[in-house]
């Protein structure tokens, strides 16, 4: 039995036991349901082995929504725990675990997946491509992300959650202070999903550089595609840093090295340094695609072209470079000299300039536009003032000397949620609503969507604005409770109230999906929003080959030219189309990665060796495999196009 003891949760509570039961029941329900409806074949052939960028995108988004609810449950638990002084709902250890998993899940498995999911679905359509450059690699990316996410999520029922914060600072994360296997989970889950993310980065750069429709020069790309290109460039250069940092952390915890120890030459702040060399660019990996989505939505619903296209592109390029030059502002209080802090303080403030340019461009796009306040547009309009507040408080934090006051207080927590929620989360919800008809062929109900929007926005303000005040008053982040004498109680209660409103907002979104699935009309046409870019030029839902005929492009708003200026979008006739084959290899390989990670977490060397051999065998098999894809014949395409009513428009 000794073997199994290691899998026990070191710090159990009724909540965790209830989750165990719930997880077990859900798994059984899924297996039973799929078997009952005899959908295993469909699931395997159409989804699990797919290399279609649209389906992979949708799988990313579904996973991201699931993770949103996992991370959201953590958030509500935290706000509940701190809603009144001296609360005993969670103890200190559980609170540590909850804020750690909240951060990791939301950043890595929710926001990243959502961003990559939307990029997967939209980018090839926007540039008029049939798929991404490496469809098989794309599937591997998704499944590695999924394996990492699942590995992380089983931690709280098998062996214990990580508890050193999402930043996982040493020495707290070392064996001395984090005695459970939780931080091992952190290391391996992020390592595995990080490999997938890096591959996505390479894949999308190659796709955007090489596979654009004829006539689409770089400066004629839609803004979301531009943001995706810049984002993926940041991914490619930032993620290897995380890879190395995590390898060093793993060596410290599992092989007894002294990188981040305070003895034998080690240096605990070195982890912080490497983490933020990756971590700050990561912030822009999340926000730049959001900027791209807002650009698309604001132009569409203002009924005019995006103001300042070139300055939009230029500011993103500058942001991508500057994002690698500011990381030290995350530890101004470490003890480096004033000159070092000043340098990083200045680079930090410099980032506000290109960001400010973008804000003005959006405002000027709306200026004199005919604005339609649809749900995506509401999110975009709310984003501008809320994000600006987040940005301004960011500049406050960037003042190195003043940062000694704000550092690690709730002020910081308020600041980054103020950028991430109106910035990233609102953008993802706006983008999801906007592109929903392209994905599924029907629209989400506007009225219910607006209810969700108001709950989320008002809930957001109630949750996070009080934290600015308590933060300035000295409430430290990550404290599991506080005494009544501090006076933090009422404002924290207000935060909890706001969190409740947000939770209701998310539930309304789920209800909206259900309601629209049942009742929304299916005959919405190919262009329900009267949009401008190329993804709206194909059918709803999109056929697997995307475009029967490759579009010919003359501006960044090719579809608008086609609608309003008589531009001929599809000059050629239908020819046979080359498509990639499905493959089971990605999901099998990721399964092996999951076993590899799990075995490593628990030092089960037999499992490590066997799964490593399996992974290399998969790679060798892939090397020898001959797979030239397949062709869809011209007749077959004509048949499909006729069903949609007219070939190639």
């Amino acid at each position, binding site marked *: 039995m000794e073997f199994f003891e290691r899998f026990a949760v070191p710090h159990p509570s009724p909540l965790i036991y209830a989750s165990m039961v719930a997880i077990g029941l859900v798994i059984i329900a899924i297996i039973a349901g799929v078997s009952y409806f005899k959908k295993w074949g469909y699931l395997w052939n159409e989804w699990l082995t797919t290399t279609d960028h649209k389906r992979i995108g949708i799988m990313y988004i579904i996973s991201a929504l699931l993770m949103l609810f996992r991370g959201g449950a953590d958030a509500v638990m935290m706000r509940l725990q701190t809603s009144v002084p001296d609360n005993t709902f969670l103890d200190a250890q559980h609170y540590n675990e909850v804020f750690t998993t909240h951060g990791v899940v939301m950043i890595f498995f929710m926001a990243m997946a959502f961003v990559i999911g939307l990029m997967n679905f939209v980018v090839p359509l926007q540039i008029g491509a049939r798929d991404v*450059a*490496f469809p098989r690699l794309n599937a591997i990316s998704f499944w590695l992300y999924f394996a990492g996410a699942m590995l992380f999520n089983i931690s709280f029922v098998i062996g214990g959650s990580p508890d050193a914060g999402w930043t996982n600072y040493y020495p707290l994360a070392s064996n001395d202070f984090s005695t459970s296997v939780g931080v091992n989970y952190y290391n391996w889950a992020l390592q595995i999903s990080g490999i997938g993310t*890096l591959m996505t*980065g*390479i*894949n999308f*750069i*190659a796709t955007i*550089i*090489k*596979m654009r429709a004829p006539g689409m020069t770089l400066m004629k790309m839609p803004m979301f595609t531009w943001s995706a290109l810049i984002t993926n460039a940041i991914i*490619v*250069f*930032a*993620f*290897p*840093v995380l*890879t*190395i*940092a995590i*390898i*060093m952390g793993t*060596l410290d915890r599992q*092989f*007894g*090295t*002294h*990188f981040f*120890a305070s*003895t*034998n*030459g*080690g*240096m605990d702040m*070195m982890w912080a340094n*490497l983490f933020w*060399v990756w971590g700050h660019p990561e912030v822009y990996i999340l926000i730049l695609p959001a900027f791209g989505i807002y650009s698309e939505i604001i132009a569409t619903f203002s009924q005019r072209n995006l103001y300042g296209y070139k300055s939009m592109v230029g500011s993103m390029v500058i942001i991508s470079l500057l994002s690698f030059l500011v990381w030290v502002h995350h530890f101004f209080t470490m003890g480096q000299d004033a000159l070092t802090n000043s340098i990083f303080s200045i680079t930090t403030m410099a980032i506000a300039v290109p960001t400010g340019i973008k804000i003005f461009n959006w405002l000027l796009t709306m200026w004199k536009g005919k604005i339609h306040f649809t749900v995506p547009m509401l999110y975009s309009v709310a984003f501008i003032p809320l994000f600006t507040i987040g940005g301004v408080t960011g500049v406050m934090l960037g003042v190195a000397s003043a940062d000694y006051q704000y550092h690690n207080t709730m002020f910081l927590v308020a600041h980054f949620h103020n950028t991430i929620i109106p910035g990233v989360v609102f953008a993802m919800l706006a983008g999801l609503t906007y592109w929903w008809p392209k994905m599924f062929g029907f629209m989400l109900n506007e009225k219910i969507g607006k209810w969700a929007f108001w709950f989320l926005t008002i809930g957001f303000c109630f949750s996070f604005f009080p934290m600015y005040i308590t933060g300035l008053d000295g409430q430290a982040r990550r404290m599991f409770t506080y005494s009544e004498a501090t006076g933090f109680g009422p404002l924290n209660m207000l935060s909890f109230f706001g969190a409740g409103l947000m939770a209701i907002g998310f539930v309304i979104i789920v209800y909206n999906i259900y309601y629209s699935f049942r009742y929304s009309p299916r005959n919405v046409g190919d262009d329900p929003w009267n949009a401008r870019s190329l993804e709206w030029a194909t059918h709803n839902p999109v056929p697997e080959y995307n475009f029967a005929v490759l579009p010919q492009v003359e501006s960044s708003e090719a579809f608008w030219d086609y609608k309003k200026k008589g531009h001929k979008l599809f000059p050629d006739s239908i020819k046979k189309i*080359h498509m990639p084959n499905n493959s089971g290899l990605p999901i099998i390989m990721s399964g092996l990665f999951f076993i590899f990670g799990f075995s490593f977490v628990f030092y089960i060397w037999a499992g490590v060796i066997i799964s490593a051999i399996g992974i*290399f065998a998969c790679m*060798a098999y892939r*090397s*020898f495999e*001959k797979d*030239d894809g397949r062709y869809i014949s011209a007749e077959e395409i004509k048949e499909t196009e006729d069903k949609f009513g007219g070939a190639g428009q």
Partner: protein
Amino acid sequence: MKIDHTQPLEYSTEQNQLNILGFWIFLGAEIMLFATLFASYFIYENRVGNGPSGGEIFEITPVLIETFVLLTSSFTIGLAINAMRLKRTKAMLVFLGITLLLGLGFLSVEIYEFMHYYHVGATLQTSAFTAILLTTLGTHGAHVTLGLFWGLFIMIQIKRRGLTPATANKSFIFSLYWHFLDVVWIFIFSFIYLKGMM
């Protein structure tokens, strides 16, 4: 697959061009991977704790052998690609074989070197300096090891299938990988060994 005969085989299909470009972008990521290791190395370089410093454990002879062996292998794989473009399959296989043998030689010396470090008491656990030294060298060595298998698989495929757009493409990409490992070694040679022994 449309094959464009005006291009060298390795560039002759659209997918081939994508593969080559994709691999270049991957090498960009590898630059950052090794840069992170170098940044850490420079920071830990003098943090030796109770263990030895670089100057005390580095030996010039194995390092020189490793350097010249790897430089030569980088030259021979360049010749292999040249032979491939001349459609001289046999010569290409010979050069590829020499490259892999040199790679194996490099690896053997590196293993000897690691054993030497072990014997003089410089292990992963000794100090932050020894740990980062062995991690950096080990990461490079792991890349070489992977390259040996990869190169071998490509040789087998050329032997079986001849020079096709697919095999030529793989060989060219492998050559990029191998040259890149040589560049990394140059930096290890200069900024770890020579700087340490200076």
